[in-house]
């Protein structure tokens, strides 16, 4: 299935989402409350069958925080990108996808650790690399005068 | 007596009689015991140092390395240097350790091995004590070391040590059985437990040749079980480096660690020496019935050299096994003993008894 067909199928699966084409992969922006249902729909549907979660990236878009999911279908060998954004920087919360893909467990913990997005329903949400008093270093407003020398 | 030139009996008798002539019998025995004790301790230390060096050289050559080569020619003083270093290393005190047992444990291990080495026949006449239950005594004493290992593991207040010690306990209790049965097989063949008589019985053919298949089987079983009893690879579960860091001696440092280390090598020596005595004729040279010239030449080599040569041959075999095989898991270790070695051993004992009864053993 090429990207155009994939975009059409995905649009049918998750109405009300914004789909961007013409990039490397089909990109789909989902509201945080629709994330879990969209993800499981993408996994269950036999045309898309995204059974592998390749990567979870925490993003800081300035005003908003976001998470980017790279999905792959091992059956059809295609990939797509799922994006979600929250505007609450103080206490951002997104549904955890651990129930859909087990791989999300560690990947979401990493995002929580470095970007500070909390995942609702995550079985074991603890800091992974840093200790609990540390800030969230991958946010753009993170300040560290000692270790980061800006050029 | 064809090898009277090397018979040390008259020499030891001469020391005995001259001592008795110059002092009261009680003092004479005391002086003799001190002489024997000192001689054994010196031998013990030298053998320990040499075996550590030998092991390092052997494994190095197997691994395409050179091994120790800096201290002295060919690195022969490397272990001496290591010993000196270990003497100066700080003895780290362990918090919440059982102080008394922690300090006693290495000595128990050492004492067990010294007691065993005392009863070994090194050459004709060079035999500290010739018990009429020599084999039985050796087996009893050499398994005492495990108490030290268990105490060390328990008193260190370290979970790795405890796991190591418990493994070691399970392992030695099981393998003691195989060692015992393998030796009993040979006792059946020899008809005696006294070491000197056993060696004398091997004058015209070592037991491993005389005993046909059962003796060879017993030898193989003995080597496997003996390796396991000394906690050496591939049965080194008690100190399994990659799992338990260093097992029961994780918390030991300095000379206390050195004692454990030394005891391990001496135990290997003892196991090999027993194997050499019981299966390969001890200090008895290789004789073939009827080949008088050949026997004369063999007799020309001193019995002490024969004994050490055979022992180091077996030691080399054990090193070879260690540096080739990966380690077993604890359940596999016990399976090997209870499901394979023990039935084999009992069957083997039966076979040997039949052979002896039928009279095929000469």
């Amino acid at each position, binding site marked *: 299935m090429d990207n155009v067909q994939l975009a059409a199928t995905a649009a049918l699966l998750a109405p009300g989402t914004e789909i961007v084409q013409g990039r490397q992969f089909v990109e789909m922006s989902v509201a945080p409350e629709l994330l879990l249902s969209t993800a499981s729909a993408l996994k269950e549907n036999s045309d898309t069958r995204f059974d592998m979660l390749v990567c979870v990236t925490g993003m800081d878009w300035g005003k908003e925080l976001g998470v980017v999911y790279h999905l792959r279908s091992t059956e059809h060998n295609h990939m797509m990108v799922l994006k979600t954004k929250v505007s609450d920087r103080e206490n951002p919360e997104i549904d955890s996808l651990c129930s859909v893909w087990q791989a999300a467990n560690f990947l979401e913990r990493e995002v929580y650790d470095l970007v500070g997005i909390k995942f609702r329903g995550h079985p074991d949400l603890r800091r992974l690399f840093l200790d609990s008093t540390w800030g969230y270093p991958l946010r753009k407003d993170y300040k560290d005068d000692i270790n980061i*020398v800006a050029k | 007596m064809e090898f009277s030139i090397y018979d040390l009996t008259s020499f030891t008798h001469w020391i005995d009689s001259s001592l008795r002539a110059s002092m009261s019998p009680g003092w004479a025995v005391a002086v003799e015991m001190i002489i024997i004790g000192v001689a054994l301790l010196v031998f013990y230390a030298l053998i320990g140092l040499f075996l550590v060096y030998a092991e390092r050289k*052997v494994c*190095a*050559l*197997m*691994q*395409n*390395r*050179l091994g120790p*080569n800096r201290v002295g020619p060919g690195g022969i003083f490397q272990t001496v240097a290591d010993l000196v270093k270990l003497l100066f290393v700080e003895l780290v005190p362990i918090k919440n350790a059982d102080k008394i047992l922690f300090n006693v444990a290495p000595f128990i291990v050492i004492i067990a091995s010294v007691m065993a080495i005392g009863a070994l026949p090194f050459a004709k006449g060079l035999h500290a004590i010739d018990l009429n239950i020599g084999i039985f005594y050796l087996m009893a004493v050499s398994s005492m070391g495990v108490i030290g290992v268990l105490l060390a593991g328990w008193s260190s207040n370290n979970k790795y040590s405890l796991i190591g010690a418990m493994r070691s306990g399970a392992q030695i209790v099981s393998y003691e059985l195989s060692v015992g049965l393998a030796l009993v097989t040979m006792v059946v063949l020899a008809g005696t437990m006294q070491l000197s008589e056993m060696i004398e019985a091997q004058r015209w053919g070592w037991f491993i040749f005389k005993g046909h298949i059962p003796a060879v089987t017993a030898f193989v079983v003995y080597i496997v079980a003996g390796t396991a009893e000394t906690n050496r690879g591939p049965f080194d579960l008690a100190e399994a480096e990659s799992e338990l860091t260093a097992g029961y001696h994780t918390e030991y440092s300095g000379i206390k660690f050195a004692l454990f280390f030394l005891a391990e090598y001496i135990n290997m020596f003892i196991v090999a020496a027993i194997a050499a005595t019981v299966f390969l004729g001890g200090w008895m040279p290789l004789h073939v019935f009827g080949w008088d010239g050949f026997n004369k030449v063999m007799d020309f080599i001193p019995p002490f050299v024969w004994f050490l040569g055979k022992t180091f041959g077996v030691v080399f075999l054990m090193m*070879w*096994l260690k*540096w*080739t*095989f990966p380690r077993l898991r604890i359940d596999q270790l016990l399976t090997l003993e209870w499901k*394979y070695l023990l039935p084999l051993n009992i069957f083997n004992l039966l076979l040997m008894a039949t052979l002896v009864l039928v009279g095929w053993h000469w």
Partner: protein
Amino acid sequence: MKSFITYIKGIIEGLISLVKGLSVTGGYFFKPGTTWTQQYPNNRKELKMFDMFKGEVIMPHNEHNEHKCTGCGICEINCPNGSIEIIPASIVNEEGKKQRIIDKHIYHLGMCTFCGLCVKTCPSQALAFGQEFEHAVFDRSKLNKVLNQPGSKLMKGVV
């Protein structure tokens, strides 16, 4: 009966596999001259690194004590760790024009990760990699090196 045969077969195959393993280690033990050990401090004289080996960054000087560094600072910009520092100076050259040269080209070996970007991007090929690899010193400040030799000048013809 069948299980007994497989049991025996398993034992024999296992023993054969063990003997195979012993033959490998034993083979090396009894075959002399298979050691691969390098006697490092003793073979210092014969030990030669490959030409490409990235030991440290050096600035080659010719026999007249001249180097090619113009002090443009591209290496300093390209260095990801800030291990190059250039202190420029200006002189008046023979034509009477002001010219930028280097006073000191400071190289912090302790911070260098040997990525090779300075050597690659230098427009006048003034920098190169040296093969020296014994960098251990007792004082960290000794790792800060000045690459241009004292009294050195810019090579003629280098712009």
